[in-house]
Structures are given as structure tokens and as C-alpha cells.
């Protein structure tokens, strides 16, 4: 039986604390839920450090621990809090190796979620610091991907930002690319929209419309192979990128990188609506659902 991503994260964290006498920093860690049960039930003596409710300072405190070679984990419980928490990470921790030849490796777990969470806390918030040098960004949604990222972190002395999503924690499946020959359309989903993409593909399979899925989770550095580019070019109706961020965020950055290289003219996006979410279900702003993506694809096919 495959483990859930939740159990994998918990296991990795426990081993990391023990093996490296490391530290896990964050706010409200040992409170209700233990970070959606992704954190082993350990305390300060074991390296789990409850930070003060001072988001900006907290990023600095973790940076200091990173500077001491502790390889700390830093849990940012809502990615919207990146706006405060990432200041010293991107401006200090990510620069120490280049300026002072002093690496500051940190494993950051930024957790995204949507739904009834209001204008600030929800969605993915990677694009605000994507441009900054010396940060590696991944968005693993399965156990295998998470293990890959952690292993890479152990062999690196860089800052890693791991963009998680609460809806992925129960996942036991391995999400693999699905690349049928001569696709009608190729989906490039990011984060939680990867699960929707699988549903979309199943729907169109029944209708004999060939949907390719190229999962995007190794976000920075962002590299597609020549084979990938060739495949994208073969898509009859183009590429549809989906994410739990606004269109002008990460999707635009990645699409620009892809288009610069491949000159694919038919590029479509589905992310959060260009509006501010409220605190009620009626005024939410959530990522595209499978049925919305299906409608979009039908529309793309119809218009072409």
C-alpha cells in the first residue's frame, strides 16, 4: 500500500531532525492538527521550534539557523504569508553563498490552500519571489516527488522552497506525464490543478480527444527537454496552463520561458480569477475545477 504524501512528509521530517540534529521552525506547529498531521508529534527538545507571531522576524530567525548549518525546515502555514516571511530568506539566505561564501541551506514548506480563506491567506504565492536568484522552487504533489526534492536538498547547499498544497496531503498516487501521440491539446498543470488535469483527461479520453498532460512541479530552475518542446509544438489546439495563482503570476513567467524557446502561439491560461476573494464561499476565488477546464477546452476547440 502506497503511503500518503502526509505520511511521507512526516517521515522525512522525523528522520531529518534525528539525523542532522536539525530544527523545524514555524508558527502554531504543535497546536491543533500538527500542520495537517504532516509533522511528527515532537517538541522543542527534539528540534520543533515554535516561532513568535512575528512573521517578518521569523524568516530572519530561520535564516540565522540556516547560517549555522542546521539545514532547518521552515513551515509557512499559508503561502499568502510569504509576503512577510520570505523577506530575509530571499534577501539574505539566498545571497550568503555568493556574497560571503557562506551557504545557508533552508527547506521551506510553504502550504497553499483555497476556499473560504479570504483575500490574503490562500492560493499559491511563488511568483512574488520567483525572479530572485539562488532559490530553488518545487511543487511536489506526490510522495515520490517529495522524496526527490528532499534528496536533492540534501545534496545541495541552496535554499529550497517547496510549494505544498493541503489537498495533496492525502494523495497516494504517483502523478505521471501522459503524452499520447499527436495530442489535440496539452495541459501543463501546476500544484493542486494537477489533480483536476487527471480528471479532465479521463473525460476527453472517452470522447476520443487526445489530451496530453505535462506536469509542472520542478519550477525553478525550469527546464524542459528538447523532446518536451517538440511534443508541445505538435499539439493541435495549443497548450493550456493551469495553476492556483493569478494569470499574471507564475504561469505568465513559465509561459514566457516556454514561448521564448518554442514559439508556440496558442497558449491559454486558467488560474484564479482576476479579483479579490472574500471570506465567504459565495465570494471565493478558487483555482479552475475539472469542469471549468473541460469547458475551456471545448471552447478552445470550437474557436479553432
Amino acid at each position, binding site marked *: 500500500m502506497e503511503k500518503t504524501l502526509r505520511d511521507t512528509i512526516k517521515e522525512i521530517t522525523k528522520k531529518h531532525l534525528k539525523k542532522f540534529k536539525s*530544527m523545524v521552525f514555524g508558527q502554531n506547529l504543535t497546536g491543533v492538527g500538527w500542520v495537517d498531521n504532516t509533522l511528527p508529534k515532537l517538541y522543542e527538545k527534539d528540534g520543533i*521550534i515554535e516561532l*513568535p507571531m*512575528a512573521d*517578518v*522576524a*521569523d*524568516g*530572519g*530567525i*530561520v*535564516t*540565522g*539557523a*540556516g*547560517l*549555522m548549518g*542546521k539545514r*532547518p525546515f521552515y513551515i509557512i502555514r499559508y503561502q499568502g504569508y510569504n509576503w512577510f516571511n520570505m*523577506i*530575509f530568506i530571499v*534577501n*539574505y539566505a539566498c*545571497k*550568503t553563498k*555568493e*556574497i*560571503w*561564501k*557562506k551557504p545557508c541551506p533552508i527547506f521551506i514548506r510553504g502550504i497553499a490552500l483555497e476556499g473560504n480563506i479570504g483575500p490574503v491567506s490562500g492560493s499559491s504565492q511563488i511568483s512574488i519571489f520567483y525572479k530572485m536568484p539562488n532559490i530553488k522552487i518545487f511543487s511536489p504533489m506526490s510522495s515520490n516527488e517529495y522524496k526527490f526534492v528532499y534528496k536533492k536538498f540534501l545534496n545541495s547547499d541552496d535554499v529550497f522552497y517547496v510549494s505544498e498544497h493541503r489537498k495533496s496531503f492525502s494523495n497516494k498516487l504517483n502523478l505521471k506525464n501522459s503524452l499520447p501521440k499527436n495530442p489535440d491539446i496539452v495541459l501543463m498543470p501546476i500544484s493542486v490543478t494537477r489533480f483536476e488535469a487527471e480528471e479532465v483527461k479521463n473525460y476527453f479520453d472517452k470522447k476520443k480527444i487526445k489530451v496530453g498532460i505535462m506536469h509542472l512541479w520542478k519550477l525553478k530552475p525550469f527546464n524542459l527537454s528538447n523532446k518536451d518542446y517538440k511534443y508541445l509544438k505538435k499539439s493541435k489546439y495549443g497548450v493550456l496552463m493551469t495553476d492556483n495563482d493569478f494569470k499574471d503570476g507564475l504561469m505568465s513567467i513559465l509561459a514566457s520561458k516556454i514561448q521564448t524557446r518554442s514559439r508556440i502561439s496558442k497558449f491559454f491560461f486558467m488560474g484564479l480569477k482576476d479579483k479579490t476573494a472574500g471570506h465567504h464561499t459565495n465570494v471565493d476565488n478558487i483555482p479552475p475545477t475539472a469542469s471549468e477546464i473541460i469547458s475551456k477546452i471545448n471552447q478552445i476547440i470550437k474557436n479553432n
Partner: protein
Amino acid sequence: MKSFRLNVLNRASISRIFDERVYDLIEKKIIKFPVYLSAGQEYVACTIAEICNMKRIKPMLFGQHRGHSIYLGFSGNVKDLINEMLGKKNGCTYGMGGSLSIHSEKINMFGHDGFMGSNAPIAVGACLASKKPTIVFLGDAAVEEDYVLSSISWIAKKQLPILFVIEDNNFAVLTSKDERRDWKINNVAKSFNIESADVNDNPLNIYKSLKNYKFKKPFLINVRTNRLYWHSGAGKDRKNVFDRLEDEKRKLGRKALEIYLKNNLKINNLWKKLLEIQ
């Protein structure tokens, strides 16, 4: 205490002579990047360095932009700092730090990124992770940063072996403390249950405040001092500023003058030699 004062003067004079030379090179446009001279307030770092030396403690040092006196006060290599000012790879910060971001593995000094007061939470994290004696140097403006205040709060909670030193020259660039706030940082520290002191930069006053401090818990000292020159670059924005180094030189007499002249010769020769190589 005369030998203590002479030792402090030795450290402070190295810093002052270094800064005077830099001042001159800025005026001559040989140094063209932003420089933050310590001149006038070097007695803060230099006195604390001498106290640490007496206690045989080699703390981790987290300064910010005005760091010449921290580096030189804590016996950083003068030649390495000159090379740094000249942008050379064999500078103490590999030619990357200039004046603002002095870093030195040799003396456990960690570089600064340019965000005022960012060194406070970073030092707190480093201290928590290593449990090593740690000193944070901040200005009177930096302590107004919210993340500095919350860092001070947390060192009390965690009882970390960390000394917060506030080099209080009264100015944020040229905006005085009176115009910015109505509180004193040592009172804030007290309210967080941290032992604290507020003194001027007379080395004996600093010594009295810290003589029993053993880096077993947090302590905050606000030291009132004077910046002789502009916030950045070479120039004066005020006249008749009290100069602790000159005052001590006068009070300590001939021996102090000898120390000063010896350092003056040594450092200026070093500058001359390294400028010629350049």
C-alpha cells in the same frame, strides 16, 4: 583601569585612522561607492571588543552598514579591509561587501544585507541554533523596525546568550530620535524582562554596565555616541561634535599619543602600499 582605556584607545584609533584615510579617498574620488564611516562612534564597538578580550570570549558578530569599527575593533585584519575597500578578491568579504557588508570568517563577523536591523533576527536564529555568545550591533533607527522589537522580545523568552548593542548616534540619516519616537529602547528591553543599560560612550561606563555580563542570558545596552561625518560618504553635517577618541587621547596623555601615532604610521603605510599595488 588605565591599561583598559589605553587598549580601547588602541582599537579605536586603528578604526579612526582607517576611516580618516577612507574619507580622504572618497574626496579624491578614488573610492566611489557608498561608505559608512564609524568615525566618532568607534568607542562603542572597541570598548565591547576589549571587554570580550578580557573575558576571553570570541562572540559571533552581527553588525549592519556602519561596520568598520566593529571589524577593526574586534581585531579584523586591516589589510583585508583595505583590500575590500579597493574591491579586491582578497578583501575580507572577497571584494563583494564594500563598506556596507563586512564579513569575516576569521573574527566570526557575519555580513549585512542592507535591510536596516535584519541582523537582529538573523543573529537571534544563529544564537538559538549554535548557543554561541552573540553580539548584535544596531543603530538607534534600526531598533524601530518591528522585526527588531520582536527579536528582542524572543531572546527574553528563550534566554539566549546574546548582547544587543545599540550605537545610539541620535540620527536616522539626519532625522533625530526626538522626531521619530517617544520611547527608549532600554525601557522596552526592561519591559520584555531583559536586563539593560543606557550609557554614554565613555569606556568606563560601558565597562561598568557589562563587567558582570557573562553571555549566559540576553542583555541590551544603549550607548549614546556621536557620528562625526555624514550618514554616508565624506562630509560633516554638524559642527562642534563631541569626539570621544580625542577626549580620551587628551586625558590619557603621552602614552595614548604614542599609540595613536604608531597606528597612524602603520595604517597609512599599509594604505599607501596597497594603493600602489592597485
